[in-house]
């Protein structure tokens, strides 16, 4: 018959193994990841101003054409200010929100294939940065 075991009487050992010096480099690894992500946000700014600029330009054109209309249009100088604000504070917004917001306001049609391409490129950038690919090389590819 097996003897009853009381776990309170067992030694509370930590027997899991970790690679040598694993904890020594931990802070550096995290700081590198944080700064790579921040740099990625900058890459986003470089890459996506074209969308924001196109949206701003179309919005401004619509406003210009309709500025003498008696009935106000949905695109106003305030909307243009909004576009500028979003563009300047791009980090504070989710990517999907930006696509959704820019597309209906400015009547810019971005096809599903193009969105997929953008998402894939973004995911690829993030993956490459996480894998330690030189940021300069990525910037050259833009």
């Amino acid at each position, binding site marked *: 018959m*097996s*003897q*009853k*075991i*009381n*776990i*309170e009487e*067992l*030694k*509370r*050992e*930590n*027997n*899991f*193994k*970790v*690679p040598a010096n*694993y*904890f020594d480099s*931990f*802070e550096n*690894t*995290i*700081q590198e*990841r*944080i700064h790579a*992500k921040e740099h990625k946000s900058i890459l986003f700014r470089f890459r996506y101003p074209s969308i924001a600029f196109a949206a701003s330009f179309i919005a401004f054109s619509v406003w210009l054409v309709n500025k003498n209309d008696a009935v106000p249009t949905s695109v106003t100088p305030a909307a243009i200010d909004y576009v500028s604000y979003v563009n300047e504070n791009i980090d504070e917004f989710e990517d999907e929100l930006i696509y959704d917001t820019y597309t209906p306001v400015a009547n810019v049609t971005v096809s599903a294939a193009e969105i997929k391409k953008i998402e894939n490129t973004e995911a690829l950038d993030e993956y490459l940065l996480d894998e330690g690919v030189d940021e300069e090389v990525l910037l050259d590819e833009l």
Partner: protein
Amino acid sequence: MGNWSDNEILDKFRNSETKNYGFNLLMQEYKQRVYWHVRRMVIDHDDANDITQDIFIKIWKGLDSFNEESKLYTWIYRIASNECITFLNKKKKMFFIPIINVEEQLSAHIDSNENFSGDEIQKKLQKAILTLPEKQRLVFNMKYYDDLKYEEIAEITGTSVGALKASYHLATKKIEEFLTKD
């Protein structure tokens, strides 16, 4: 390690000039506790490493909005616990693995000498812990290994102290039964 209080760490983090330094102090203070908490849940080092890194990235992003309604370490443990549960749920769903197979997979890691160095009774103890449902396992580990108080675990898990005591008692019984059988 241990020379800085949570308040001092938070003060450093909230000052833009010492933000990175403050976060490094936080990592020095908590990296091992978080890692071991995660490792006991996911068993494999590579998974524990990935999850622990993600946890500290989340802490970095969320620390500005930490409102000090709870203690810093209970907030960190809560993030870590949620990440572990999310990871284990994903592992089951994404690979369509029935629960029993995930347990077996984790159990196999304990048999590997690359992962675990304990004697037979320690191996069996870890395997017994793996038979518990995930949340019960979290509670058991925080009580048994991290020696947290029930009140602290209650703050982390959002469960009542009474329920936690019952959960720990049941977990202990199950583990002792597992250890006793051949």
